[in-house]
């Protein structure tokens, strides 16, 4: 079965430091890749997506992610985090156009002053 793995369940980071959240998936055939963010007591909102084209994808709030087909990874990065980036981050993959999303287990980011 297809799977999505987020290697870190929690990432504490100091304000203005960089952060990287790791995401790996089980197969690289025709994948569509997403990162969602969930702020406290809210639903998920899309940060960025990779459908095709450039492997470096830029999203909202200064986040970016890089698709690496050979390593079946889609890691999320931000060069300098703010307190307001404290949230839960979910990697998600669709293995075919229009197919259901499979979510990773999530990574909780806690930004400390």
């Amino acid at each position, binding site marked *: 079965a297809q799977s999505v793995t987020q290697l870190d369940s929690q990432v504490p980071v100091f304000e203005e430091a960089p952060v990287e959240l790791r995401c790996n998936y089980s197969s690289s055939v025709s994948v569509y890749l997403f990162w969602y963010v969930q702020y406290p007591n809210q*639903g998920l909102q899309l940060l960025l997506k990779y459908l095709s084209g450039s492997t470096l994808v830029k999203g909202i709030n200064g986040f970016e992610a890089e698709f690496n087909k050979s390593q079946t990874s889609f890691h999320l990065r931000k060069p300098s985090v703010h307190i307001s980036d404290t949230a839960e981050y979910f990697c998600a993959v669709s293995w075919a156009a229009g197919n259901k999303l499979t979510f990773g287990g999530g990574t*909780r980011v806690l930004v400390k002053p």
Partner: protein
Amino acid sequence: EADIYQTPRYLVIGTGKKITLECSQTMGHDKMYWYQQDPGMELHLIHYSYGVNSTEKGDLSSESTVSRIRTEHFPLTLESARPSHTSQYLCASTLAGGPSGELFFGEGSRLTVL
């Protein structure tokens, strides 16, 4: 901004009660989904619908049921709530034929069964 709404946002209810969680979207999306989110964050798909009168069970078995009588409305019902049903339930939708997998989420319904 997504136009998908869930009610109630919070519900505390006793064991054995019937509950319905409402989900409505005004975007004309054909595909709608219900996810159950554990306290440990993980999301599990419990129901989905690809259009009116179409409903399917998701990856995680659930005692809840859903209906899709109108495009914009996708309610979830528990006939007899139990403490094991305590969780957050997230509704989502997407446009069929749109960018693959880009879901719009409601703010969630947090259910506590005593």
